[in-house]
C-alpha cells in the first residue's frame, strides 16, 4: 500500500488501462499540453502521444460526439469535460444518443464510454462552476453514474468503468483531487465494482447514506457522534446508478434510522430518490423519518461566508442524526 492523492489515482487508472488496451484513448479540453485543468492527465501526453491524449477545441458537444462516434467505430474513449457544469452543453448527446443507442437499435451496438468530470462547490467558483447534476443523469435509463470518494475507489472504479461496455458518467469533485488515501502498490492489479456501495464505518444507531465528498464529512460527523455514545454507520454509495439498495436496506434493518447526506440541492434530487426507495422497500424497518442533509436551495454564491453557509456541514449531519436518534437507549441491541 501507498498513500497517494485522488488525482494521482485517476491518472494511474487511465495510464494502466491505456497500456492494457490500445483502443482506450482520452480526449478533452487542455488535457495534453496543459496537463488537465485539475492536473489529472499531467504527463500522459509524453507516454501516449497526441492521438491518444487528444486536446479538443472548447466544444463540449463535439467532444462527446467524437467520443460516442468513435465508440461506435470500435474505440473505448474516455472523455474529460472540464467540469460537470459544462456537461449541459453535451447533455443532448449523452441523454439522446449514448443512453439510447443500445436499446433503440435493438441491442446491436454498444457505447463503451467514460465521461469524467468534476462537480461540486467549496472553492469559491461561483454559481456556474459549483454544481452537481448527477441526479439528472442518474434519472436516465441507459446510463451509469458513479461518484467515488477515496483514491482507492477512484482508481478501482475508473479501471472498471473503462473496461465496462456501457456509457458511464464518472463524477469527481474539485475538492477531492488532493485528498490522500491508501492505494495498492503499482503493479498490484485491482478493480472496484460499479454497482456496490461500501460501509466505510460500522455503527448500530443510524445509517448515514452518502457519496462523493460528503462521505468524508459524514465520517467526521460519525467520530463526533461517537463521543456522545451514538454509533453512526457510514454507507458510501460510490455508485448512484445502479444504486446498491441492498446495502442501504441491510444497514437500515440494523439501525432503523437513516440520514441521507449530499452536497447537491434538496428537491427532486438524488437524496430524495434514495429516501423514496427506502420508504418503498424498507418502510417496516424505520423507527423515524429519514433525515436529509443537503446544500441550500440557492444558486451557489461566490462570497466565502455565503458559500460556506450554502454547503452542508458536519454540524448539520450531527444535528440531523440527533433529531432522530433517541437520547437514551434503555434496551441494548443484540
Amino acid at each position, binding site marked *: 500500500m501507498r498513500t497517494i492523492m485522488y488525482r494521482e489515482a485517476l491518472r494511474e487508472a487511465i495510464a494502466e488501462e491505456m497500456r492494457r488496451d490500445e483502443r482506450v484513448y482520452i480526449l478533452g479540453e487542455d488535457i495534453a499540453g496543459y496537463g488537465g485543468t485539475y492536473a489529472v492527465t499531467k504527463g500522459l501526453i509524453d507516454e501516449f502521444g497526441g492521438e491518444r491524449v487528444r486536446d479538443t477545441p472548447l466544444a463540449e458537444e463535439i467532444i462527446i460526439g467524437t467520443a460516442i462516434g468513435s465508440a461506435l467505430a470500435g474505440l473505448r474513449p474516455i472523455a474529460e469535460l472540464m467540469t460537470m457544469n459544462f456537461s449541459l452543453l453535451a447533455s443532448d448527446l449523452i441523454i439522446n444518443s449514448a443512453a439510447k443507442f443500445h436499446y433503440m437499435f435493438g441491442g446491436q451496438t454498444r457505447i463503451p464510454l467514460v465521461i469524467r468530470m468534476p462537480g461540486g462547490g467549496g472553492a469559491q467558483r461561483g454559481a456556474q462552476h459549483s454544481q452537481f447534476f448527477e441526479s439528472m443523469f442518474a434519472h436516465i435509463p441507459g446510463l451509469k453514474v458513479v461518484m467515488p470518494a477515496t483514491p482507492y475507489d477512484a482508481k478501482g472504479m475508473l479501471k472498471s468503468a473503462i473496461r465496462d461496455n456501457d456509457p458511464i458518467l464518472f463524477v469527481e469533485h474539485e475538492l477531492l483531487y488532493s485528498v490522500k488515501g491508501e492505494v495498492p502498490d503499482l503493479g498490484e492489479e485491482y478493480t472496484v465494482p460499479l454497482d456496490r456501495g461500501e460501509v466505510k464505518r460500522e455503527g448500530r444507531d443510524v445509517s448515514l447514506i452518502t457519496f462523493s465528498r460528503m462521505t468524508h464529512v459524514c465520517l467526521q460527523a460519525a467520530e463526533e457522534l461517537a463521543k456522545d455514545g451514538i454509533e453512526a454507520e457510514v454507507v458510501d454509495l460510490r455508485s448512484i446508478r445502479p444504486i446498491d439498495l441492498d446495502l442501504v436496506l441491510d444497514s437500515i434493518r440494523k439501525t432503523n434510522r437513516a440520514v441521507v447526506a449530499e452536497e447537491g440541492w434538496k428537491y427532486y434530487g438524488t437524496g430524495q430518490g434514495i429516501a423514496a426507495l427506502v420508504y418503498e422497500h424498507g418502510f*417496516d424497518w*424505520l*423507527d*423515524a423519518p429519514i433525515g436529509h442533509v443537503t446544500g441550500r436551495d440557492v444558486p451557489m454564491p461566490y462570497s466565502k461566508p455565503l458559500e460556506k453557509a450554502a454547503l452542508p456541514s458536519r454540524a448539520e449531519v450531527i444535528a440531523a442524526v440527533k*433529531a432522530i436518534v433517541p437520547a437514551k*437507549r*434503555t*434496551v441494548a441491541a*443484540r
Partner: protein
Amino acid sequence: MKTVVMPKMGDTMESGKILSWLKAEGDHVDKGEAIAEIETDKVNIEAQSFVDGTLRKILVPAGESVDVGTAIALVGAPDEPIEAGSPQATAPEAAPARSVAASPAGTNGVAPSAAVATAVATGNGASAPVGTDERVFVSPIARRIASENGLDVSRLTGTGPNGRIIRQDVEAALSQQMVAIPPVVSPTPSQPAPAEAATPTTPAPAAAVSVPIAEGDEVVQLSTMRRTIARRLQQSMQNAPHFYITMSVDTTRLAELRERINDYAKAQPGAAKVSYNDLIVKACAMALARMPQVNASFDGDRIVRHHHINIGVAVALDDGLIVPVITDADRRGVLDLAHESTRLVEAARTGKLTPADIQGGTFTVSNLGMFGVEEFTAVINPPESAILAVGVIEPTAVVEEGQVVVRDRMKLTLSVDHRALDGATGARFLAEVRGLIEQPMGLLV
C-alpha cells in the same frame, strides 16, 4: 374493388371529417391523387387513392365524421360490379347534439359557501382529534415488532418526536411483559374483557368460530403470550405449506461422546452439563453451515439467506411456550453452547428473558423426548424455513450384518416450508444432521 378508408394521418388522430369530395362518383382517379379533403383534430389534409381507377362509390358524404379505418369510398374499374357485401358507411345518424349552449352556465358558477365555512372552522384546531378515535403515532418498525408480539401499542407512551412510539418503547414494554405474564381470567363471558376492549388493533386470531358456553365452562382470556403463539403459528400453517421428513438415527456414539464431554466438564469450573439436545442443536448448526440454503426465510418475492446461524430451542412453560435463541450456534464450542442453553432455559422459566434473547432465530429445535414422545411434527416458527422435532431415545431392535441387535435410536422429523425449500433439500439436510449425530466427533472439530 379497392376500399378507401378514413386515413390515419398522425398518431393521435382517431377520427376525421370529410370536408369535401374532390372527385365525384364516376371520375377517374390516379394513384396518389387526392380524392377528398379531410379535417383532423390538427389540420386539414387530403385523402388519396392508393390505386388507379374510377371512384365508384362515395360511402361517407361531405360534412360527416367517421373513425379512422372506416371505409369512405370504393375505387375500381369503371364496369366492376359493386358487391352487396362491400363496406357501407355506418348509417349517418343525426349529428350528435354538441350544442354548447345546452347547459346553463350558471349551474357550476355558484360556490358552495357553506362548505368553505366548514373548512375554515376546522382549520383552527386541525390536529385535535374528534371523538374517541385517537391517533397513535407509531414508527413502522415499532408497529411491526408490536404486531409480531401481539402488543397493544395504544397503551404505550411514545418517547419519540411528536410522542411517536418508537422501537425502544415497544422493546421496553415487551421486556417487562416477559418478566411476568399474568393470565387474565374472566369469570363472565358476557362482559367484554378490558384487554379486548382496549386492543382494537390486535384482534384475537381465529375468532371466526363462536364457541357456545355451557354452564360451568371457564373462559380464559388470552395472555399476550398465548395470543402470540396462536397468531404466529396459525399464520405459519396458513402461509407456509409444510411438508415433513422423518429419519431414524442411531445415538449410540452420541451417548458415548456426551459421557466423555461431561466427564471432562466436571473438571472445568463453571462448565454446564451438556444435554443430548445441546448436541443435536450443535449438529443442526453445523448442518446449516454446510447447507446455507436451509438457513433462510421466504419473503414474498425473494428468499433471504441469513448470515448468522441462530437456533431457537423451544421451552415449555406452564402457561405456554417460548423459544429463546442460541446465537451463532455454529461458532460456539459445545461447552459454550451448553452454557448458553442452560442460561436461556433458566431465564425462560423465571421470566427473565430479554427481547434480545428471543430474537433473530433462523431455525428451531423442538424436543419432546423427555415426555416419551416417539415422534411428532412441529409447526415452523416463522419466518424460519424449517424446524426439527426430536423424539425419545429408545432401545430398538435393528438388523446388522444379518443379526438382530439392540441399538439406541431416536426419530427426527423435519418440518419444511415448501415455498423456500424442496423435498430433496430437506432430505439432504436431515441426512447431514444424522451423519453428524452418528459420527459425533465432527461436532467437536
